[in-house]
């Protein structure tokens, strides 16, 4: 039966996440925006509490550790993907930067959860894993990765450069994507777990950013960095058709989550703006045609319709993942719509609130800065459109570049 309401059994979880966002994130939001690179130690205790909740099953498998493709099974499911999405929407409503630097909830953890074997999963349990894909010469074009991995006896030897590693400084592990053979393209690119204390892994710098300043973004150099053979995630075989599957698999699961972050941030901006323009005497009438209302009210209706479309697209993608339906197209649609909408919404909300919206008195201007990354990381707007267009038009990446 068609129903697009959030299931009752997950409402408690969303409420808990909302409380965390309101009580823990919002009060320190401005402080860690100003003091970039300072570790928000308040989150350590919070992470422990959240792990306790997770272990007790109260989170329905939400959290970076839990996002996996579900098997088919009987009947309709609202499982870990939806639970995680709903939690993230609320946390992002609080602060996207702080959410990204929640200990042990990194993207690397999602990659480990998606492709690690049992032994690896146990060995890396309880550790914070950051994802290291991007290189100075390989952004969206992740198949152009130049970092190499060479097998020497029982060890992999890694060489190369990685940038834009979210939580790279604070995490315990890096999931480093490197090629076994630069002549073999995507198929040869594999993820490796690199413990942060391995010699040859050098933290080069921390970036100074437009937004999400509470979250550290690190650049690394790998110079003959040696790791055990068992730290490769997945198979060492270079299989043409399976190649790069790991990255894609991870992204199919995480794109809806980034869409969720955009949805949460957009809602924060809309709620604040509705409150402020409401105090200024503008109320949105849902029945009256927009053209008969003030421009501000009409604009808010428009923005809210984009927000709602993005939210539903993200829910759909998560629902498909929970029910074992291939969701690559839906995930990209959600990410594309939510990414661009949250930027437009946040920037418009600043405009609607005028000088006050632009000032640091409120968080609106910060949200507008934070928003932009959500249309960039985990695949930029343009990459999502390429993925969608290729699927719709039946084009290869060679034909539609």
């Amino acid at each position: 039966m068609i129903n697009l309401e959030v299931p009752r059994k997950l409402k408690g979880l969303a409420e808990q996440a909302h409380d965390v966002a309101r009580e823990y994130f919002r009060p320190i939001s401005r402080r860690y925006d100003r003091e970039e690179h300072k570790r928000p130690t308040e989150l350590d205790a919070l992470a422990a509490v959240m792990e306790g909740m997770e272990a007790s099953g109260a989170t329905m498998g939400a959290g970076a550790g839990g996002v996996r493709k579900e098997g088919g099974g009987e009947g309709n499911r609202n499982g870990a993907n939806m639970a995680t999405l709903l939690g993230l929407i609320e946390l992002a409503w609080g602060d996207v930067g702080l959410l990204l630097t929640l200990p042990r909830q990194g993207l690397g953890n999602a990659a480990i959860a998606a492709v690690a074997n049992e032994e690896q999963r146990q060995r890396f349990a309880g550790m914070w894993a950051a994802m290291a894909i991007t290189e100075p010469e390989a952004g969206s074009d992740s198949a152009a990765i130049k970092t190499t991995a060479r097998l020497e006896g029982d060890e992999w030897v890694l060489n190369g450069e990685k940038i834009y590693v979210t939580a790279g400084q604070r995490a315990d592990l890096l999931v480093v994507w490197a090629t076994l053979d630069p002549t073999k393209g995507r198929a040869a690119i594999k993820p490796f777990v690199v413990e942060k204390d391995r010699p040859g892994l050098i933290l080069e710098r921390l970036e100074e950013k437009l937004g999400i300043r509470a979250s550290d973004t690190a650049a690394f150099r790998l110079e003959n960095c040696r790791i055990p053979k068992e730290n490769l995630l997945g198979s060492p075989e270079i299989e043409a058709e399976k190649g790069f599957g790991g990255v894609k698999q991870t992204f199919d699961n995480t794109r809806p989550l980034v869409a969720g972050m955009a949805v949460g941030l957009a809602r924060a901006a809309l709620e604040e703006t509705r409150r402020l323009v409401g105090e200024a005497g503008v109320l949105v009438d849902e029945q009256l045609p927009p053209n008969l209302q003030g421009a501000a009210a009409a604009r808010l209706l428009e923005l809210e319709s984009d927000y709602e479309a993005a939210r539903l697209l993200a829910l759909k993608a998560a629902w498909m993942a929970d029910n074992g339906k291939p969701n690559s197209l839906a995930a990209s649609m959600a990410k594309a719509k939510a990414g661009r909408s949250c930027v437009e919404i946040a920037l418009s909300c600043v405009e609607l609130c005028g000088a006050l919206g632009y000032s640091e008195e409120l968080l609106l201007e910060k949200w507008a800065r934070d928003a932009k990354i959500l249309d960039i990381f985990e695949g930029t707007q343009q990459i999502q459109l390429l993925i969608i267009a290729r699927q719709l038009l039946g084009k290869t990446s060679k034909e539609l570049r």
Partner: protein
Amino acid sequence: MSAASSARRLGLKALRRIASSPALARAGGKERLARLLYLASRETSRLGSRIARTGRPPARQRTAPRADLFDLTPTEEQELLRGAVREVAERVVRPAAKEADSACAVPEEVRSAIGELGLLALGLPEELGGPIAERSAVTSVLALEALAWGDMGIAAAELGPAAFCTALSLWGDGDQQAAYLPDFAGEHPPVAAFALAERNPLDNPLWPRTGARRRGEGWVLEGEKALVLRGGQATVALLSARTERGPALFLVELPAAGATVSPMPAMGLRAAQTARLTLEGVAVGADALVGEGDPKVFSAALARSRIAWAAAAVGTCQAVLDYVIPYVKERKAFGEPIANRQAVAFTVANIAIELEGLRLLCLRAASRADQGLPFAREAALARAFAARRAPAIGSDGVQLLGGHGYVKEHPVERWYRDLRAVGTIEGGLLV
């Protein structure tokens, strides 16, 4: 459960069996299905006409149970119905759409093929011969989408009367229902209109200029309704007029003294023969007022109408997407298919994204309505989104074909015209 409705349930069970059999996929299966659906809905129609007219309490469809989980899977019946409508849309409606647009009329064989689907009775309570016990705006959304994929003008022409039927099912009293509804389950359903729009710039449906003045026990109506679907053929209209309590819905049988209908052809929806209905001192009885003039009834009607237009837009936008994909893959420029260019491919991707967003907005509003949850906000968002995105998708459809899109050899220019109705028109359709 009455004998008739048990019989109908058995019929639906049989339908399900047929639907799941692989034989159906073979020749003629779908056509038979459509026929069976029609018969199943006909099963109880005789019952309806026997209902006495005086003082009967109104019949209503049940509110759907609250769903527990987020779910985008239609029920088996919905899937069956959608498949049957889609089949007719593809085989009968689409091929007739161009001619219907230029002739401003729906050909008889198209009318009867759609009529056989029994869609008009979807909103009818079981006691009055309706095929489903529970209220289902979602089912209406799916049917509208599937039919408007074939053609929005024809869909509007043929499903306009369903708006009237659903409105009386939802808000009519026992006598109003007995007077008009049984015919909708019968073989020759009446042409009925649901008229809210007026021809004023910045038209405000919440404050119609058409006024209703009390006279004795009854009312006198004065004003003008615009873009009334099949206004010239309608034998009865449900229209909005302002009373001292605000906007209200009135039943007006046509022709009536003081009522004049004249053609009001428009940019699109031409197959639906849009008309102007002028009311000059039209006297109606006390029993013409629907829903006791409750402003909440009017609000719900307006919201349901907006969901319906957004749903029709989903169908036509899907038609655009399905049409441009093969076109841009075949059309060559500078030595390769234009689909290989990002400017073209991204436009296609964006149509798909916004269309899917619109579809989900419609379904959410409709499913909330079915479950008895507030849905004014969701309907407003679906409308706001449709008003902006649907015409843009129509425009992209023409643009992707370039000059070829501007001529009537291709259907995209018609979709461009039809999609502008969304966000412009109020009333006419309803879920």
